[in-house]
């Protein structure tokens, strides 16, 4: 018992970080930040996020169009880029319609809560290592702040952000928003558990909750590889956490119109909209920081001339590339998967993700004790295969076909029916099947087949 604890809290012996020449410990440099510098950083993050959201809207429209074999916005400006300016202006200038039964204070406060909490997360995300500010002698990390529990701060912001949704749903004084809000609170709480569990092993490995420490600990091997199951868990949980397809149940259009934001319009709706997209950026940035090596260059590049690409302003590029890769993933998922039913969604969260998360934490804890106690030759020799096996098992479980579809309708014969016998088209009953559509001859396929047949008949 005690030994296990000892192993878990003692500092990591593995990944050793060799600081590059002229490296100043980042925490001290952060302490040295002048108030002006802090303000500049904060504004920079704000501007970056706002621009990213605008870009994300265009990006999403463009990518999803391509996936649906459309072109997407292409009229205004190069690649339709100015479309997003129009989108933004339209959103802000629309008529502000609100309901009379709303709760005046909370109706306005709710979207604000959402947006503020969304903005806060980026303050602890390290966008780059310590760099020299051009034209000055000051050295500062590309990060607003960092503190001993920065990684927990992210979870805390997410936790408070939910209130924006819940209170907004309630303050609208209407049924659909209320149901949407209740659903959403249940959803986010459930998936936050899975998300928190996926982070535990990251903390175990980095022995720290400073985000910069976590990035530093991934110098040799990304946690996304080393802790693959945790990474997969996080990926699923992050989609659930941001209410994106296939988990966008709080605003399931067919059932709830637009969920908690049904009664919001114009600029107040824009706040929610902003919060949703910033949250996507947030979870992507967190995934990047905790699992994908943060601002560090990916492997072949990191080896270039002794890691020169990990210094200076280069890391910003890697960071942005990773974040937008994840953003692409979000869009890809949206383009590929259908929305889950609410009970399926909850079952996935509670009966699959959370048990897997718990199991993984225990397994990793045991493995780590074995390693620290030196009962294993090397952490990589044992835990990497274990991680891979477990990851595969997770994937298999996730994609295992639920009970093979028994042919309950088939009683040997399938009767063909006349679909329009009574004058009205009727769908087939169980055990019946429709005759081939008369239009089937009109498709290109059918015509070419017919032509071939005709050719053969002739020949």
């Amino acid at each position, binding site marked *: 018992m005690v030994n296990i604890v000892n192993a878990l809290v003692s500092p990591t012996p593995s990944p050793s970080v060799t600081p590059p020449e002229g490296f100043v410990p980042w925490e001290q440099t952060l302490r040295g930040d002048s108030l002006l510098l802090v303000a500049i950083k904060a504004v920079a993050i704000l501007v970056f996020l706002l621009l990213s959201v605008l870009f994300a809207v265009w990006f999403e429209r463009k990518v999803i169009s391509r996936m649906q074999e459309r072109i997407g916005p292409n009229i205004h400006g190069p690649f339709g880029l100015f479309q997003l300016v129009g989108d933004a202006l339209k959103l802000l200038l629309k008529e502000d319609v609100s309901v009379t039964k709303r709760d005046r204070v909370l109706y306005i406060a709710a979207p604000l809560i959402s947006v503020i909490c969304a903005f806060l997360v980026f303050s602890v995300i390290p966008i780059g290592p310590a760099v020299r500010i051009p034209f000055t002698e000051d050295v500062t990390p590309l990060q607003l702040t960092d503190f001993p*529990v920065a990684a927990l701060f992210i979870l805390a912001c997410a936790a408070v952000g939910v*209130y924006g949704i819940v209170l907004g749903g309630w303050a609208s004084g209407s049924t659909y928003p209320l149901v949407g809000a209740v659903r959403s609170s249940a959803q986010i709480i459930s998936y*936050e558990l899975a998300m928190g569990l996926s982070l535990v092993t990251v903390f175990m490995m980095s*022995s720290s909750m400073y985000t910069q420490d976590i990035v530093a600990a991934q110098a040799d091997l990304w946690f996304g590889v080393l802790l693959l199951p945790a990474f997969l868990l996080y990926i699923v949980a992050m989609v659930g956490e941001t209410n994106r397809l296939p988990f966008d149940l709080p605003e399931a259009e067919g059932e709830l119109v637009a969920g908690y934001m049904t009664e919001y319009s114009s600029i107040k709706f824009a706040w929610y909209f902003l919060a949703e997209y910033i949250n996507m950026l947030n979870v992507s940035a967190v995934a990047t920081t905790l699992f994908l090596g943060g601002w560090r260059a990916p492997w072949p590049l990191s080896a270039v001339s002794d890691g020169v690409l990990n210094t200076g302003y280069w890391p910003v590029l890697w960071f942005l590339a990773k974040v937008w890769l994840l953003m692409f993933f979000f869009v890809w998922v949206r383009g590929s998967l259908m929305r889950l039913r609410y009970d399926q969604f909850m079952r996935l969260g509670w009966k699959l993700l959370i048990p897997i998360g718990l199991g993984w934490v225990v397994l990793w804890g045991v493995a780590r004790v074995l390693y620290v106690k030196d009962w294993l030759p090397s952490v990589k020799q044992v835990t990497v295969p274990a991680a891979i096996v477990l990851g595969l098992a997770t994937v298999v479980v996730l994609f295992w076909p639920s009970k093979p579809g028994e042919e309950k309708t088939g009683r040997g014969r399938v009767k063909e029916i006349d679909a329009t016998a009574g004058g009205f088209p009727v769908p087939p009953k169980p055990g019946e099947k429709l005759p081939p559509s008369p239009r089937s001859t009109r498709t290109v396929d059918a015509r070419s087949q017919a032509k071939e047949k005709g050719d053969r008949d002739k020949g």
Partner: protein
Amino acid sequence: MGEQELFWVMSPVIVLASLTLLFARKAVYVLAGMIVVMIGLAVFYVTLEAPFLGMIQVIVYTGAIMMLILFVLMLVGVDQKESLRETIRGQRWIALAAATGLVVLIVTTVYRIELPIRDIGGMNDGGNPQVIANALFGEWVLVMEILGLVLISAAVSAIVLTHLPRSGDRRSQAERAEERVRARLNPVNKPMPGVYARRNALDVPAIDPEGKPVPASISRVLKARKQDKDGSEWRAIGKDEAAE
């Protein structure tokens, strides 16, 4: 380091927020006040060099517990106002007197006390979360284990009080759809109002294949308000009529 200033800024906010507990009429306002109190406390913890506690305060209390309370309130009716009728007469005054007594007792005591300034420098050596981990799994490990038992019994208790096992077999969506078809019920949804009729307003019933109106297509609410139409006047023109 700005601790005192922050205290004087935050404490009025917290006190005001906590007053909602006494004076707010709507339950949601009370909860909102509580949330502000919780976050304010978290801020205090962080400034007092206990960042881990501060974050846990937000994640657990604000994020989970208050949210669950809000959740329950929403399910049981968030708009209900409390009945202010007293079942026991005069208990408000008794309670007020007792509370005043307690406040006076505590305030006078605390006022007289002079607490020494304790030097807690070095308490966080090695990192605040690490120090807490050492305490929880070192000196207090037995307590953590007892807490585990408390949580087990709480979880089991909650299940005992709320879990209804499913009676009968669970049927899949496909099976239920098939049953509906066999029973000659609506195989999919009920028809929308106005289907095959000449107008598709909400109060106009759909027309079935025989040209009769389908009452089930209109919302029950409209029927209760007697705002529905019988549909005869909106029937699609049949072949016979068209011929005439």
